[in-house]
Structure formats: C-alpha cells, structure tokens
C-alpha cells in the first residue's frame, strides 16, 4: 500500500533503489533492515514537512538524509568491522597450526637426533653403564664420551677389568 502521491512514490522508490545498489556488499539481512528503516524515516520526515508542494517536500527530506552513497558509506565502516570480527581466527586455532607446522617436525627431529646420534645402545649404555663391548666400542668410535672423564670416574670393581682393557682414547664417559 502506497503512503505517498504517485510522483512522490516514484522518487522514494528511485532513492531506495539507489541505496539498495550501494548495499550489495552487505549481508542480505542487513540490506533489508537498512531499507526498511530508511523507508520509515522518509515517511515520518515527509509527514512532518511543511512544504505544500509534495515534490519539493520529498526532495527536502532526501536532501537532509544524504546521498545514497554517503548514507551507505557511513554504515560500511561498521559492517567491515563486523566482518573482520567474524573472520578473526581464534588464538587456540592459530596456536594449533603453529604447533602442527613447527612443533611436530621439531619433535620428530629431536627424537631422531636422540636415537640417531647416540644409537639404540647409546641411550641404554649411558643409563645402565652397559658392559656390552660392541655397544661401548660403537659409542667411542662416534666420539660420545672423553677419555679424561673416563679416568676421573672409573667403573666399579665388577666392570673395571673390561674398562681398562679398552684403549685410553676409546674409553667412554659415564
């Protein structure tokens, strides 16, 4: 149902159409809300106008409201802020991505260094002071341990003979 004389109706429709074009980037619900509110404002302002000429009166209403581009531009800032908020990735997700990208490879690398660098017997050897001469020899060949430390911390009586039978340069450190 029209609330205006025919000519005024056309002017209002044209104005709202121009606003609608400017609003194309907004979410659909926002577009409808803005147009509905503008329609309400235009009608109220038109009714409150004093110009006896309907065309002159509606043009004055639209002039006070502003150009469609300006009306939308003022809302654009708010809308962009909201879009930015929606697209903001939570910190926990970002943290997960960082851990996934760097943490896991580093973790694997760490395990690889631990296992690869010392060798399977190397770990056990350090912890348990293994008496396996092959493992001990392997560690010595790869430079794990120094002769100096070996001298200052000799093994107990049980492993003493075996230890001293190894050449000084190849003696491991425990």
């Amino acid at each position: 149902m029209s609330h205006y004389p025919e000519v005024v109706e056309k002017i209002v429709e044209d104005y709202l159409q121009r606003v609608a074009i400017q609003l194309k980037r907004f979410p659909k619900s926002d577009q409808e809300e803005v147009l509905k509110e503008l329609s309400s404002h235009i009608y109220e302002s038109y009714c409150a106008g004093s110009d006896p000429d309907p065309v002159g009166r509606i043009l004055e209403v639209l002039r006070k409201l502003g150009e469609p581009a300006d009306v939308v531009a003022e809302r654009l800032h708010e809308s962009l802020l909201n879009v930015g908020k929606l697209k903001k990735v939570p910190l926990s997700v970002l943290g997960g991505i960082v851990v996934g990208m760097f943490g896991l490879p580093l973790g694997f690398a760490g395990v690889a260094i631990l296992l690869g660098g010392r060798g399977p017997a190397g770990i056990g050897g350090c912890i348990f002071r293994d008496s396996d001469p092959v493992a001990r020899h392997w560690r010595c060949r790869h430079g794990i341990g120094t002769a100096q430390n070996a001298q200052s911390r000799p093994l107990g009586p049980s492993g003493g003979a075996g230890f001293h039978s190894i050449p000084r340069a190849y003696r491991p450190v425990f």
Partner: protein
Amino acid sequence: MDYLDGEKERRVTQLRKGILELAVMGTLYHEQHYGYSLVRVLMGDGSLSLREGTVYPILTRLDKEGLVRSEWVESDQGPPRKYYSLTAHGRKLFESLMPEFDQLVALVKQSRNGAKSRQGQPLGERILVTKEEKA
C-alpha cells in the same frame, strides 16, 4: 582557505563521532525513540547541521554491542517504526561515561579561559609567568 575548511570538517567529524554516540545514549536513557523522533530531538532547533542519516549507523552499532535494544512496531499511519531503548548495560555504561565527558568539557573550557585571560602577552612571557606561578 579550502585546506582550512577541509581540516575543520575532518576535525568536526571526529569530534562528533564520540559525542554524538553519547548524545544518542543520553536521549535513549530517558525514553525510547524511533529513528526519526530521535533525530528530531538531537537536531533540536536546527542549529546543529547534522545529516539525518548519521544517526542510524550509531544506533546499529550500539544495538550490535548490546547497549541498545530495538523492536519493530506497526504504525497505523505508515510503515512500521523501529523503536530503540537503552539496555541495563547501556544505562550503566552511560552513567559511567558522563563524569568522564564532564571532565573533558571542563578541561577544554578551562584551557580556553586560560588562553583568553592572557591574550596580548607574548608567548615567552606567558610561559615565564606560568613557570613563576608554579614555583
């Protein structure tokens, strides 16, 4: 002159942004309004040159922030009206903002009066007087 006009316009826009938001909250603090009636109250006697569309983005933002609530009400005469009122959170915030605003206004007035009372004195002399007063 054009440059000065542009500068003035930019600063007036900046000044209005925060103050207009406070004025909207202050108006809705006392009673609910629909868009056009709120614009009428804010414009007063028309001495404030304000584009009427300026108020709506402010209302939308306040609505989204939960400081204002809105509802569409059917009207007998024309299209439905969207009524706005301040929420409890909005009222509380407005009450806490008002003293801050008063302080800012007092600060601006004070600085303006200070400048007026020493008009005619050279700048260096004014600075010296201020230092002596402080001592």
